[in-house]
């Protein structure tokens, strides 16, 4: 049976809570209501009030409490109703969760997960891609799955990890993509990128919803005779440099595509890393297709102009292939 991205996340939560009684879920409206997107529907009925905790609207309070639970040996999962609200608990994540193992050897085995990304007319406070604030924070792990398989397998890995993991679920993908998942327990390791499509003319590095945009673009480019390799980063922190560099060694050209805004996006870091480590492998400038350096606008025409799409990726890739 085909499983959606959203359903895969719920399966991961169900199965991890079944497997390990130290796993708890906390957040706003995650219990009775089952979460704003219904990711946690059915969990309260299954696991009860002690393990599925409806909280006040207090992101700092919730994440702080999760850190404390982690200190005491639990593995809480916190839902941000929309990932935009993670800004409210920035201090708990960057000053306490991220630093505590480095400073005094206290692991913080928590997961903070929630819906990110645009394309659903959420407007400037319900569409953000705030991953890079946290990629700049040593001590955190930042995960951005693009498929149902990865969403399930990586959420399980995140829950079992001893470090604070931020798990960005792209809400455009929640019910739009699905696939057959294997029966039984499986995990996907954090920190490993994957070549989703092989090609020899250029490499597109992307993640989350933009992976699908990039794959669509690659299919179009194939008709023009351009063979595009597409890498799904899957984890932004720690970044899998080896997979990127190995691909550049084959294709010699790099285009990075992300829905996050341009300045300070992961493309800049990848470009710096590639020029430092593989300058001799490059046969063209590193290009990027990203969102504009603006808040996410609301109107359909504005948001479409703001975000990358297949046409923008195809145009940039074509130009780079012919460079």
């Amino acid at each position, binding site marked *: 049976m085909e499983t959606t991205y959203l359903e895969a996340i719920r399966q991961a939560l169900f199965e991890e809570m079944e497997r390990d009684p130290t796993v708890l879920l906390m957040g706003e409206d995650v219990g009775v209501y089952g979460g704003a997107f219904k990711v946690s529907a059915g969990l309260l009925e299954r696991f009860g009030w002690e393990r599925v905790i409806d909280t006040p609207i207090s992101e700092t309070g919730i994440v702080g409490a999760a850190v404390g639970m982690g200190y005491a040996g639990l593995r809480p999962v916190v839902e941000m109703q929309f990932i935009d609200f993670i800004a409210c608990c920035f201090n708990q994540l960057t000053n306490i969760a991220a630093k505590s193992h480095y400073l*005094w050897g206290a692991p913080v085995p928590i997961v903070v997960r929630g819906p990110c990304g645009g394309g659903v007319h959420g407007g400037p406070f319900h569409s953000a891609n705030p991953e890079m604030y946290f990629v700049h924070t040593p001590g955190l792990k930042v995960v951005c799955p693009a498929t149902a398989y990865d969403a399930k397998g990586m959420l399980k890995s995140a829950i079992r990890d001893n470090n604070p993991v931020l798990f960005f679920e792209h809400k455009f993908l929640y*019910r739009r993509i699905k696939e057959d998942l294997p029966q039984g327990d499986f995990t996907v390791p954090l920190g490993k990128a994957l070549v989703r499509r092989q090609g020899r003319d250029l490499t597109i590095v992307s993640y989350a919803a933009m992976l699908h945009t990039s794959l669509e673009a690659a299919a179009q480019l194939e008709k023009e005779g351009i063979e595009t390799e597409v890498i799904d980063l899957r984890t932004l922190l720690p970044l899998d440099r080896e997979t990127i560099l190995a691909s550049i060694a084959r294709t010699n050209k790099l285009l990075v595509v992300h829905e996050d805004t341009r300045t300070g996006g992961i493309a800049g870091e990848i470009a710096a890393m590639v020029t430092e480590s593989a300058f001799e492998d490059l046969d063209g400038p590193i290009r990027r297709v990203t969102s504009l350096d603006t808040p996410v606008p609301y109107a359909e025409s504005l948001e479409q102009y703001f975000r990358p799409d297949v046409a923008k990726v195809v145009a940039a890739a074509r130009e780079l292939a012919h460079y």
Partner: protein
Amino acid sequence: MPATLTREQHLELYYFLRLNRELEEQMVRLFRQNKILGGLYSSHGQEAISVGCAYALGPGDWIAPMIRNIGALLVRGFKPREVLTQHMARFDSPTRGKDGTSHFGDLKVRHVVAPTSVLGDLIPVMTGVAMAGRYLGQNIVTMTWIGDGGTSTGAFHEGLNLAASQKAPLVLIVENNQWAYSTPVERQVPLRNLVDRAKAYGMESAIVDGNDVVAVVRAAKDAVARARAGKGPVLIEAKTMRMEGHAQHDSADYVPKKMRDLWKQRDPLDRYEKYLTQNKLWDAKTKKEIDARIAAELRADVEFAENSPAPPAELAALGVYCEGCHTVDAVWNRPEEDLQPPKSSVQAEWRMASTDAPAPALRNAKPAPSVHSGNTGVKSKSRGKSKSAGKSSQRRPGVKAGC
């Protein structure tokens, strides 16, 4: 009056108070010799709050001190050498030189969560520890401190509201030392008593003379007992006075001389010594013995700290992530099966008993749905296409008027 404390306990309290004071005086000397890096924050005059509150806890309970609560660290079993090496950034310090001041902790044995410099944030953290302790059946209480200044943070509000709504066994000590750096309390908070803030959260609360260690122990024990009995969090406002500047660099000229003189009369150590004498709990010989013990201990620990090497530079790059070097262990004091399905399954519905009953009641347990998450009621949609922009609008407005 001393009914709840034995003579030995009274003497132990004196030992910790005196050790706290002497240790800090020793650190001032080391600071002046440039052997302590960064800042040095004094708890002079506030020792009774650190020592007295921590003294009210049991060994399984947890604390998260603030930077000035060195006395609480001592009560929890940290040794002066750990405080000294930490301030001096030596390799033998609890953080191996990665952090300074009293920013260190110990999860598994002494149950101390390390302070951070961001005020208020440990209130939610200790709420979480309290919730976890209850979940695991440990019957523990957690305690943390906040200054008068820290009561104005958002984390203070979020933490207390969460603790109160969860009835978490948390005791919060508001250590009102009259000054947030240079700002007096009346310019921070429009309340005569900070304890009034507890009312807003529906919490129990008390005010205590923070310079009277016996009163502090009594109030803290009472609060801890209430929290442990499941009556929810308790806030104690301990009134005191910061007798030094914010840190060593600050001469605190903004403090009126009269105010300082008044509080000098209330020195917690002087008062406690008088109390011990008046209640015939000790004599000059006992005092001399304890003081000599402290002096010897400090001498040895200062020597240890001075001989401890600086951390090797490469250590800076290590330990950002836990890669199996530490374990995450939950100490269960209730059967794990208690928490696994289907025993805990309930119907997901609020039931309001009456309009004035604030706590939700649960309906009786109903059979749980199938484990298999394929059956959770959310149907997947086929892959949709987003509508392309502009199709619906007939007119394309100019883009010049962007601002």
